[in-house]
């Protein structure tokens, strides 16, 4: 049954993993997301659903455990924060190359380097443009509430298994650490061995005598095979780009100017929309939910309908704004605003930027 709870984003993510019928979580502590593994260890899902929870010796070990369990056909998840995710990227590239499903979360903190533990959105490039080596993509979901921290785990697993692809829940310190009301979804039972064998014939579950063995690998020593594999991957990414774009429009019907934002910046921009409307300014918010696939077409449509300007609001020096530029293609004004390095911009600052850089500019 669904329940109303007051939870931190990180806790909701952990609870959602149990409820989504995850078979395993492998993690390593790092601020600001350590509540995920703390919550799981305290809740003991291994006694409730049989879900495995293991604190690995490193982020690297944890993501390779994800690779192992995913290859074996299991629903598996990990989470970390920016420096830890950098360590995981080799493993993510392997998972993408071997076409395995998994969900992982990045509760982003400020960088580069060890950086700060305060919130940031400076991992956009890393999340949407590959990150690890090779020509791969992953689906990136950007929750803007504790509710979405929970819901996107379930949705993430659905997408991950539908396309055999890693799905990243790109959160940040604000969404991870804040508490909000959350309606928890009904628990989904874990799959049985028979169900896994039937649904995922590619998984390593033990080879029946006289049948073909299953091989989980990302190695193609023959370049022609490697190219064919890449072509197959690109086809999949194209399909995802066409079918899986998600976004939310707030006060856009009559808007002449819009904020483009995701995650906690979208929440802040939403407040700025209210402040703008109170001043009589026709401002709306285009909230990205999927960062890959990016809603290029939808932003283009706004342009062709005469939108005058777009302000990309993100806690970075300007990363997502490049994708907005690529969508707008010079038809309207595009600017960036954002504080970074762990500083969270205020609704007032965001509105001021809109007035100065877009409306008045």
């Amino acid at each position: 049954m669904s329940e109303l709870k007051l939870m931190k984003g990180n806790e909701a993510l952990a609870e959602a993993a149990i409820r989504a019928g995850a078979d395993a979580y492998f993690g390593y502590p790092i601020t600001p997301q350590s509540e995920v593994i703390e919550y799981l260890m305290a809740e003991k899902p291994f006694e409730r659903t049989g879900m495995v929870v293991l604190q690995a010796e490193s982020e690297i070990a944890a993501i390779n455990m994800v690779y192992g369990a995913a290859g074996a056909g299991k629903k598996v998840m990990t989470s970390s924060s920016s420096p830890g995710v950098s360590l995981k990227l080799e493993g993510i590239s392997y998972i993408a190359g071997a076409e395995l499903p998994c969900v992982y979360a990045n509760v982003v903190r400020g960088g580069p380097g060890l950086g700060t533990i305060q919130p940031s959105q400076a991992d956009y490039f890393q999340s949407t443009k590959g990150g690890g080596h090779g020509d791969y993509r992953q689906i990136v979901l950007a929750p803007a509430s504790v509710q979405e921290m929970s819901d996107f785990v379930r949705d993430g697993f659905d997408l991950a298994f539908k396309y055999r692809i890693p799905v990243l829940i790109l959160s940040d310190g604000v969404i991870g650490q804040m508490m909000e009301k959350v309606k928890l979804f009904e628990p989904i039972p874990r799959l049985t061995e028979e169900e896994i064998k039937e649904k995922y014939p590619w998984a390593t579950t033990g080879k029946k005598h006289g049948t073909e063995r299953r091989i989980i690998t990302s190695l193609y020593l023959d370049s022609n095979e490697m190219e064919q594999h890449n072509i197959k991957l690109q086809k999949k990414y194209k399909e995802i780009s066409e079918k899986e774009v998600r976004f939310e429009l707030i006060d856009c019907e009559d808007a002449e100017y819009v904020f483009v934002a995701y995650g906690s910046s979208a929440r802040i921009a939403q407040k700025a929309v209210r402040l703008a409307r109170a001043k009589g300014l026709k401002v709306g918010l285009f909230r990205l939910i999927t960062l890959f696939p990016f809603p290029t077409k939808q932003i283009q449509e706004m342009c062709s309908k005469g939108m005058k300007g777009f302000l990309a609001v993100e806690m970075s020096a300007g990363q997502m704004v490049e994708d907005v530029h690529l969508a707008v293609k010079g038809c309207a004004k595009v600017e960036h605003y954002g504080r970074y390095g762990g500083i969270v911009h205020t609704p007032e600052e965001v509105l001021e930027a809109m007035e100065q850089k877009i409306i008045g500019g």
Partner: protein
Amino acid sequence: MTEELIIAGFGGQGVLSMGKILAYSGIMQDQEVSWMPSYGPEMRGGTANVIVIVSDERISSPILTIFDSAIILNQQSMDKFEKSVRPGGVLLYDPNGIIRHPTRKDINIYQVEASHLASEMGNAKIFNMIVLGAYLKIKPIVKMENVILGLKESLPERYHKLIPLNEDAINSGLKNVKAFHELN
């Protein structure tokens, strides 16, 4: 109705849990809530603060710089957040340990001697509940029965025997809040 509140003081004063109980109380009466703490090393013994928003509508930004109300429980927080109350808003503080009292004339300022009252009641841990009582006297945004339900939800079951004591503390705060500077 939307109430945007900051609670700021020392780590260990129960700042975060006070905010959590308030947020739970909002859920009990079907409102939207958010609870956004400062986090990191300052949590360990230094200053702690939390922004709590209780609203009838979907909450936009959980991080704010201007507040309807501020509950201030140490000098550092007074220095930092007195200016963050919106004109006409509310500042509630415990004068214990405060050497530079608030000076603004465009807001309503109240005091509650929560640390004294807590030591009189013989339990320093109920300090935050006294402050919560005082706040709810000034800003009755949630019903008392929902606060008790909120307490039950946020306390682990083994502490439920302490609920009557917490109720007494809230009542003590309700009774003992004093106006320091009130707008007409």
